[in-house]
């Protein structure tokens, strides 16, 4: 449906261009008719064009800036030593990929995020569901967790290193802590705010505790849960950098530190690009997995 609306908007474009030419001044209805006719003639091609052209609009600014910078360096306005031009970044990226370095570092980082995210999500989901479901657990546990949440998670780093050593365990724990809180808050808030009227429907049909969770609460919190997972994942990517800054021999965070210490800005930007790609990709995976479960949503903006 929305696609039709979009194409309608596009059909207006020929009209506005025609108005510009004085020799084409004619009655409004005739003008519209011409425009519509033109639009139908090109209708099919325009639809496909519109579908790809719209998202492409967002690319104009970054690609334009990159092109300008590339030209500036080529023309000799800048050496591009501290701010490498796109071609150099691309070359560095390709080189890292060719030698297998990129894969090694990306895999290490992905493994850390994966493990930390997994632990954080499990803990956050279980505790969030319990505190949301039971008033007693909420009163027992929530104040402590809220107090812990107030601590900037990076503040734990020294303690985690003392307790867990400088290798994987302390890094994964830090990431898990970062992921835990948004997931916990999201799940708890969602469970608490499930509509009492819907829960009553479950009670009328005599659902047991477990069936109530599975058939009423779980689907009801699903939309909020997906958002909690996505923000948790975002924090996971944030904390993996912090974790890798505190001493790592591999990982994209290591590439950043290494690039700074050896004065290789192109490597830093290449690592940043890798973060962007991986972050976007993993977020997209969550959305893609969740979408089939959320088709029922009656929301303001349905994608």
């Amino acid at each position, binding site marked *: 449906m929305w696609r039709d609306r979009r194409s309608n908007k596009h059909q207006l474009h020929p009209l506005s261009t025609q108005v510009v030419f004085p020799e084409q001044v004619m009655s409004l209805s005739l003008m519209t008719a011409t425009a519509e006719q033109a639009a139908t003639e090109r209708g099919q091609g325009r639809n496909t064009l519109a579908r790809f052209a719209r998202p492409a609009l967002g690319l104009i600014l970054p690609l334009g800036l990159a092109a300008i910078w590339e030209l500036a360096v080529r023309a000799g306005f800048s050496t591009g030593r501290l701010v490498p031009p796109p071609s150099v970044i691309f070359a560095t990226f390709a080189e890292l990929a060719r030698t297998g370095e990129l894969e090694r570092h990306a895999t290490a980082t992905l493994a850390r995020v994966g493990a930390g995210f997994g632990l954080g999500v499990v803990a956050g989901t279980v505790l969030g569901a319990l505190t949301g479901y039971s008033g007693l657990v909420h009163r027992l546990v929530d104040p402590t967790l809220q107090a812990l949440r107030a601590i900037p998670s990076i503040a734990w780093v020294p303690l985690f290193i003392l307790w867990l050593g400088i290798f994987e365990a302390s890094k994964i724990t830090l990431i898990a802590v970062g992921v835990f809180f948004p997931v916990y808050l999201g799940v708890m808030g969602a469970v608490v705010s499930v509509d009492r009227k819907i829960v009553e429907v479950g009670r*009328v049909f005599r659902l047991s505790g477990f069936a109530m969770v599975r*058939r009423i609460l779980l689907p009801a919190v699903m939309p909020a849960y997906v958002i909690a997972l996505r923000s948790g994942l975002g924090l996971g990517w944030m904390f993996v950098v912090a974790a890798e800054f505190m001493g790592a021999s591999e990982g994209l965070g290591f590439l950043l530190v290494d690039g700074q210490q050896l004065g290789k800005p192109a490597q830093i930007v290449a690592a940043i690009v890798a973060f962007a790609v991986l972050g976007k990709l993993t977020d997209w995976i969550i959305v893609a997995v969740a979408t089939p479960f959320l088709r029922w949503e*009656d929301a303001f903006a349905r994608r």
Partner: protein
Amino acid sequence: MLALDNVGKTYPNGVRALDGVTISVSPGEIVAIVGGSGCGKSTMLRVVSGLDQPSQGRVVLDGERIMSPHEKIGIVFQEPRLLPWLSVADNVGFGLADCPNDERRERVGRQVDRVGLADKARVWPRELSGGQAQRVALARALVTRPEVLLLDEPFSALDAFTRVDLQDHLLDLWADGKPTLLVVTHDVDESIVLADRVLVMRPRPGRIYEEIVTDLPRPRDRQSAAFDFAKRRVLAALDRSLDRSAVTDDGETRASTGAAMWW
């Protein structure tokens, strides 16, 4: 046989929503409960459904005391309360989870057809109009073949045309299995169209004030003189039940806060 024996309900904040309600309803009978706002009619329905417990007295269905929701008792609320993540058919079949798949599909299909929404069986609830959604709620409550169906102002959120339409539709569905119907309403016309017996309730505390036996042949003609006469009797009883002289301002305020608790 559904019986309420001296049922009372006092909310934790001290509001006496229901006091000494004793009625018995025979199988297949349709009873309407009318009364002013805050007279405890919805509270009574919730107590009968087992969603709320009475503070005194007891609700008995076929010799069994009702303390929690019971499989023989279905309820339709003022809002459809459909589960938005289930299709229309799955909503209707919600209470049949224990049925074998084939039987469930068969019964759901028949019930959806019966409420005239066969073409909507696979859509999400968000695509239904208010009247259609309430039909689905009716189907969901009826598909389990309850002995007693409770309806809490089931059509009050609908426009006048849809309401009349659904009243007739409800009677049509009732004829299938002749369950006992207990209908809470504040629409006097609705009570006369549907009920064999109209109970008028009186607020503060909520209790049965008057009983009017409609005694009209079915199907009922909304334009007939007999209909009008029954309607006037109910309206007169309602007027008496709300005898303003007995009510202080203070009492009015207290009752309205009580009502707000569950509305």
